[in-house]
C-alpha cells in the first residue's frame, strides 16, 4: 500500500500531440481516486504512465515515495485491470490469477492460499479450472480483479473495467469493486468516462479535460461546488442548465435577470460574494433537480417561475421537462404527479440556494 504522487507529468506522443499537459496529483494511502472526463482527455494515458506502460515525457511519478520514472512495470508493484480484461486465454482461471505470483517465485501453498482467498472474495471458486473462453463477461471481470487482488500490490489501477458489461451487471460490479476496496483497502486509481461510476466509487474524483485536471475533490464537493463550467456540466445527470443573464442590484438585494423577464432573487447570504459583479452579464447555472414543480415556495430561497415544456420525459420516479428560455435548452425535474404537459404552462420553483454564477468568458464559477 502506498501513496502515489504526480508532479508536472507530461505526455507528448510522436507528432507532438500532448495527451497530458503537466498534471499534479497527490493520492493518499488507501484512497480510491477516480479519473473521469470525456473521451480523449488523457485519462488512460495518465493511468498507463503510472503503470509504466507508457513513457513519461516530462515530470515525475512516485509510488510509495520512490520515483518510478525509469522503473519497468514489473518492478512497480502495481496491478491493473484492463477494459477487455486481457486474461491469458490459454490458462485456466487459477493459472491466470497465479501467474503473477508464480513469476515472483511464491511457493505453491501460498499461491493456492491467496488464489482461494481471492476466489472466495469474488465468488468465483467453482470457476477456477475453467478457461476464460468458458466464462461470461461478468465472470471474466471478476477473474481480472482476482488477478489484481492476489498480488496484494501497492496500487490497483483500473481502466474502464466495467464498460464492456451490460447496464445491470455494471451496477452490480460497481458495488462489488467498492466492497473489495473496503476489504483490502489498497490504494486505487480508477479511470472511467461515466460520472455516475465516479461519484459512487470515489473518495476523491479527478475531473480531466483536454489533458489537464479541471478539479479534484470528493464527489459531493464537485457536485455542490464545481469550480468551472466544464465540471459543473460534466458532473450530474442530466447536466446543469446554463442560462445567460444579468446580475442586477435592486433595492439592496441582488437579482438575476434572465431573458423573458424572469427575475430571480439571489439568497441574502450570497450578497457579499457577488456584490462586485452587479450589473455584469453572467451565466446563471442551475441543476435540473433544483428546478422543480412549484413547491416549498414559502421558503426564503425558493423563487417561482413559469415555463412551458416542449417535451416531457416520464422516468418513473420523476418526470424530466425540457423547455427553452430564449434559445437556451433548459431541463427541470418535476414530480410525476405534477401535471406537466407539452405546450401547457407549468408553474415551477427554482431552489436559489443551489444556484451558481459563472463568468461567461472564462467559464469559471464565481
Amino acid at each position, binding site marked *: 500500500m502506498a501513496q502515489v504522487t504526480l508532479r508536472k507529468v507530461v505526455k507528448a506522443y510522436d507528432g507532438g500531440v500532448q495527451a497530458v499537459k503537466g498534471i499534479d496529483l497527490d493520492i493518499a494511502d488507501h484512497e480510491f481516486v477516480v479519473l473521469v472526463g470525456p473521451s480523449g482527455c488523457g485519462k488512460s494515458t495518465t493511468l498507463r504512465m503510472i503503470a*509504466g*506502460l507508457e513513457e513519461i515525457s516530462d515530470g515525475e511519478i512516485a509510488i510509495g515515495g520512490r520515483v518510478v520514472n525509469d522503473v519497468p*512495470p514489473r518492478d512497480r508493484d502495481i496491478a491493473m485491470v484492463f477494459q477487455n480484461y*486481457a486474461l491469458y*486465454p*490459454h490458462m485456466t482461471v487459477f493459472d491466470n490469477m497465479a*501467474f*503473477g505470483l508464480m513469476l515472483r517465485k511464491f511457493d505453491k501453498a501460498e499461491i493456492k492460499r491467496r488464489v482461494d482467498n481471492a476466489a472466495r472474495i469474488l465468488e468465483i471458486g467453482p470457476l477456477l479450472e475453467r478457461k476464460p473462453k468458458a466464462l461470461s463477461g461478468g465472470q471474466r471481470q471478476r477473474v481480472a480483479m482476482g488477478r489484481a487482488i492476489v498480488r496484494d500490490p501497492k496500487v490497483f489501477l483500473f481502466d474502464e473495467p466495467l464498460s464492456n458489461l451490460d447496464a445491470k451487471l455494471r451496477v452490480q460490479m460497481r458495488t462489488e469493486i467498492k466492497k473489495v476496496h473496503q476489504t483490502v483497502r489498497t490504494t486505487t486509481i480508477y479511470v472511467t468516462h461515466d460520472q455516475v461510476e465516479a461519484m459512487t466509487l470515489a473518495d476523491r474524483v479527478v475531473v480531466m479535460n483536454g489533458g489537464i485536471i479541471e478539479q479534484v475533490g470528493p464527489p459531493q464537493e464537485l457536485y455542490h461546488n464545481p469550480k468551472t463550467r466544464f465540471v459543473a456540466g460534466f458532473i450530474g445527470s442530466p447536466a446543469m442548465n446554463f442560462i445567460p443573464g444579468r446580475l442586477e442590484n435592486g433595492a439592496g438585494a441582488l437579482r438575476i435577470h434572465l431573458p423573458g423577464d424572469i427575475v430571480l432573487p439571489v439568497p441574502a447570504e450570497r450578497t457579499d460574494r457577488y456584490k462586485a459583479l452587479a450589473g455584469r452579464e453572467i451565466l446563471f447555472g442551475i441543476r435540473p433537480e433544483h428546478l422543480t414543480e412549484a413547491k416549498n415556495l414559502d421558503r426564503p430561497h425558493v423563487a417561482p417561475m413559469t415555463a412551458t415544456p416542449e417535451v416531457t420525459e416520464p422516468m418513473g420516479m420523476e418526470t424530466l421537462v425540457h423547455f427553452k428560455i430564449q434559445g437556451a435548452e433548459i431541463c427541470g425535474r418535476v414530480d410525476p404527479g405534477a401535471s406537466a404537459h407539452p405546450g401547457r404552462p407549468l408553474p415551477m420553483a427554482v431552489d436559489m440556494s443551489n444556484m451558481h454564477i459563472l463568468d461567461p468568458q472564462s467559464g469559471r464559477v464565481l
Partner: protein
Amino acid sequence: MSQGTLSSPVAPAVVSPQSTLRRLARRNSTVAFLLTLPLILLVLGLVVYPFFYALYLATLNKRMTRFIGWDNFTFLFGRQTFWDVVFQSVLFAVSAVVLKALIGFILAHVLHALPAKGQRKWRGMLLVPWVIPPAISTLAWWWLFDPSYSAFNWALMGIGVDPVPWLGTSGWARFSVILVNVWYGSPFFMIMYLAALKSVPDQLYEAAAIDGATGWQKLRFVTFPMMRNIISITVLFSLIVTFANFDIVRILTNGGPLDSTHVFATYAFQVGIQSGDIPLGATISLFMFPLLAVFAIFILRGVNRRNKEMA
C-alpha cells in the same frame, strides 16, 4: 454448413417430388456442396485415384504382368538400402523442419521488433529464398558446393581451413541437403509466425509486464502458448512437404553418395522410373503415407483440443 436449413419453409402436408427438389436446392448445404463439387472432383482425380492406382501397382511384378501380393513389400523390407532411405527421410524431414521452425521463429521475432517502416523491406528480402523456384536456387547452391569451383571452399581456403567435400561424403552431403532445404523453407515459417505474432493482443503483453514477466518470460508464457496452433499446423504442413521433397535432393546429390541422401521421393523415382521397376517404386512411395498419417493425427488432435479451449 450442414445446419443451413434456416431459410427452408415449413414442409407442406403433401410433398410432391418437385417441391422436395426445390427444398433441397434451397438448403445452404446443398448449394455449398454443389459449389465445392469441382474441387472435390479435382481432388478425387489428382489424389484419390493415383493413391489407389499406386496401391494396385504395388501388387504387380516388375513387368506389370502378374499379381504378386505382398512380394514387393517383403522384398523392400529385406533391403538395407530401403532402411537407409527410411532413416534418411526421417532425419532429413525432422531436422530440416525443426531448424526451419526455429529459424523462422527467430526471424519473425526480429522482424516484429523492427519499426513498421523498415519491416516491409526486410520482410520482402527475407522472403526471396521462398519465392525463387527451388529447382533454380538449388542449382545455384550446387554450384556453390562444387568441389573444384566451390565458392564456399574458396572462402574457407581464404581463412586457412581445409576444403570440405560438401557433396562428396555421406555426412557432408546430408548436411548440405538439409541446409538448402532450411534455406528454402524458413521464410515460410517466418511469414506464418509473423502473422501469428501480430495477432497476439498487445494487452496480453502489458498484463504480463505488470504481472512481473521479463521479456523472456513473456515469450515463454504468452507468445509461445498463443502461437502453438500456428506452430503445430506449419510444422505439420512443412513435415509433409519436406518428407515428400524431391527437387532439392534430386538436383544437389541425386541421392548419392552411396544412396546416403535418398529420401522416399527420389528413391522411388530412381527405382521406378530410372530402373524401370514401376511397381517397386510405387511400393516405396506408399510408405510415406502411414508415417505422415501418424504425425498428422497427433498434431491435429492437439490443435483441435486447443481450438476448443481458447477463443
